């Protein structure tokens, strides 16, 4: 026989278990709802681009309204024609102005060039600030850090005037030369290098290594993750840069892909299929890099956050 108190206890216990279960279920539902909302808001637009890039413009218009699953998921008349026209493959594409293969090449070339130059010059500058002795070094560092106070978009009109003076305007080099060094990246790499123990260098000096050899054999091998991170930052910056090439380049043959896509959008008229393909091509490289190297992208955000 159970006493009343025991019965009460039992009932209370059951109630608590039920409440806990309910809470668990509602929290799971809440989480699932959150997933759904985030995925709809952040992924649908990309699916829309990819889906529409593989069908022709009539199909896009026909499925735009009324809304159905067909608006999102292409189901018939699938074609890669938009991509082949964007990349200038085939005879039809040759006669049209939608070919952005050249622009993709220019973007790739300038991004890779800036990444390489930045690796050379930012790394050596960071080596100077992080490892070498020099009278008044801190004042020079202030000179560098102070440039980070000058916001990018503000300096572009003045930069245009200077680039015009040295004859950079409307040449491929306009997209490379001003960016071969970056105060921000020098600053980040300096912190990275300052964290390495100085004994490494001392051991190398005893072995008779010079500064250059220390940089190559001691400092760089220990800074690889940092170098990958800043290279990705630099690649993303140049590949996605728009305002500077927009003003610095007026010859459409030299447009990087972002500028080419923007001008295609205004000139394409109803030819949206091709614009969708061009958009996919213009954003795919950095997105793919991100998907495979997420860690380094987050690292770059975290590092810029430390600065604040």
């Amino acid at each position, binding site marked *: 026989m159970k006493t009343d108190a025991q019965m009460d206890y039992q009932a209370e216990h059951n109630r608590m278990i039920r409440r806990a279960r309910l809470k668990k279920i509602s929290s799971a539902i809440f*989480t699932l709802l*959150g997933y759904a909302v*985030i995925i709809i808001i952040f992924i649908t637009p990309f699916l*829309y*681009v990819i889906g529409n890039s593989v069908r022709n413009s009539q199909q896009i218009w026909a499925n*735009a309204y*009324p*809304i159905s699953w067909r*608006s999102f998921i292409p189901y018939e008349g699938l074609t890669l024609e938009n991509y082949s026209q964007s990349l200038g493959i085939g005879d039809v594409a040759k006669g049209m102005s939608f070919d952005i293969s050249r622009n993709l090449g220019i973007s790739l070339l300038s991004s890779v060039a800036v990444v390489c130059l930045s690796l050379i*010059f*930012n790394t*050596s*500058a960071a*080596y*100077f600030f992080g490892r*070498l002795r*020099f009278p008044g070094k801190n004042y*020079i560092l202030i*000179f560098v850090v102070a*440039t980070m*106070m*000058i*916001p*990018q*978009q*503000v*300096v572009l*009109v*003045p*930069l*245009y*005037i*200077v680039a015009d003076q040295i004859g950079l305007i409307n040449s491929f080099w306009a997209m490379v030369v001003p960016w*071969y*060094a970056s*105060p921000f990246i*020098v600053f980040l790499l300096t912190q990275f290098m300052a964290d390495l123990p100085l004994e490494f260098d001392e051991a190398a000096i005893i072995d008779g290594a010079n*500064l250059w050899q220390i*940089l190559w054999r001691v400092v760089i091998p220990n800074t690889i993750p940092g170098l990958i991170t800043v290279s990705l930052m630099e690649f*993303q910056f140049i*590949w*996605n840069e*728009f*305002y500077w090439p927009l003003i610095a380049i007026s010859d459409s043959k030299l447009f990087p892909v*972002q*500028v080419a*896509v*923007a001008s295609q*959008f205004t000139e394409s008229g109803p030819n949206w299929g091709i614009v969708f393909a061009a*958009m996919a091509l*213009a*954003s795919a490289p950095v997105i793919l*890099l*991100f*998907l495979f190297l997420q860690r380094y992208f*987050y690292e770059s*955000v*975290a590092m810029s*956050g430390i600065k*604040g």
Partner: protein
Amino acid sequence: MTDAMMVPKTGDQKWWQKRKFQQYAVAFLFVLPALINFTVFRYYPMIWSARASFWEYSLLGGFKENIGWENYIRMINDEFFWDSLLVTGKFFLMYVPAVVIFAMALALFSNQKKPGMGTIRAVIFVPVVTSFVVVSILWGMLLNKDVGLVNSILASLGFGRISFLLDKENALPTIAMISIWKNVGYSVIILVAGLKGVPEELFDAAVVDGASPWKQFIHITLPMIRRQLMFVTVWATLGAFQVFIPVYSLTGGGPRRATNVIVYYIYSRAFKFGEMGYASALSIALLLILLIVSVVQMRLLRRDY
């Protein structure tokens, strides 16, 4: 004897000094290319445009005539300039609080220890690495009044179609919405990093004390990630004052100057009207405004610590 001892010593000293000098010279070569870049492409443009702002300056003719403060007087009387500052201010008010609040909500949500959260964070971050031009065009298409997906959904649900970008009232909030969608992931990652740094024991202690989740958030989470919150705010503010790409690719400053933000106004003065001198003066003014804003915000940040 003493003299003879001294001579090699001073010679030694000299040689030592010379070697030190050489060492310094070699060291300096490592930083020189970067310093040249910052001088030529960051400092010199500012000095040059500060000078150009006092001249009637054109790209072909160079410095034509010294006109003193005329560009600045013109700026003070330029109704479009004040209008663009007002538009930028409105954009700031729409953009910054929304970025901070959404980033906070998304960071709290995606910091839970549940399966798939890493993917969710990646999903939120994808727009950050996508080019802003592509993002702008994409949203321009989605929000198109006649054929855009968003309006198709609205119309299918029986609502009226909304003119997002061609309406004077809607255009600026739409530009702000697109910018938030594009940039919020960056702030989310910063705030998640902050949240990961909050010691679990603090929450355990609070639960023992019977603190509600809301109280835990106000009294533990917020104070612990204050630094990251301030950073996100400063970052969003600097971004708000420099918005350009969505305006350029979607509205061209219109309709009726409703999205004519300051950077776009400078762009149109410089490259549509060729008034480089006046555009330089405007750039200098914007630089000063941004310096003041960031100094004020950094002061606020420092006062807390």
